[in-house]
């Protein structure tokens, strides 16, 4: 069981280690499901077109809260691993600002954990976003 949190400056790059290919999976043979959710900046914020979103993270509380939430979700849903990546600073339309990667034995807990993680993150984690207009 493992938890990893990364706050990254600017947009997220491609994930290098997905699901079954990563080092954990090579030893954990009870992984039956991997789920990768990515949040992408959309062109419309409400009714207005934006160029980017600016993310402001209150550190170290943001990382700590993400880690606490991830630990709690890992335990509650019986996951094998959970990795969280979140941008701070400017992320343009079409770029990714958030990635949640989950490994579990079955699909149900991966889906339920993802849903609960994002809902609670939006409520509790001190990361604010502001629109950047063209």
């Amino acid at each position, binding site marked *: 069981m493992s938890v990893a949190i990364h706050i990254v400056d600017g947009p997220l790059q491609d994930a290098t280690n997905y699901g079954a290919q990563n080092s954990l999976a090579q030893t954990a043979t009870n992984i039956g499901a991997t789920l990768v959710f990515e*949040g992408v900046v959309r062109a419309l914020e409400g009714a207005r077109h934006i160029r980017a979103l600016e*993310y*402001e*993270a*209150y550190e*170290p*509380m*943001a990382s*700590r809260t993400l880690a606490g939430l991830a630990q709690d979700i890992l335990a509650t849903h019986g996951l094998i691993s959970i990795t969280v990546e*979140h941008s701070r600073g400017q992320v343009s339309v079409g770029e990714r*600002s*958030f990635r949640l990667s989950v490994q579990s034995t079955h699909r149900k807990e991966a889906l339920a954990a993802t849903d609960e993680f*994002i809902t609670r*993150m*939006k*409520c*509790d*984690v*001190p*990361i*604010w*976003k*502001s629109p950047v207009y063209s």
Partner: protein
Amino acid sequence: MGTHCYTSIVIVRVLIFGELARELSCKEIAVDVVSTAKVRDVNFALAAKFPAKSQLFQTARLAVNHAFTSPDSPINSSDEVALIELVGGG
């Protein structure tokens, strides 16, 4: 033979972020509270300072030293207080 009440006053600085910081054009609000104040007294002091945002400040969650705390927790001037409201990461 009256009774003398000595109540010392401390200044607590509250960090604010996002839309609220832009709206108020500041990143930090200083409020005066008594030295025996609890977290909820900081809420009340914020609400008194910005009557137009009274509702928000009275109910806003305050983090003390990077953790959410109970409204009953004590507060000191050396504490780092942050208003964690209207977040929406992801």
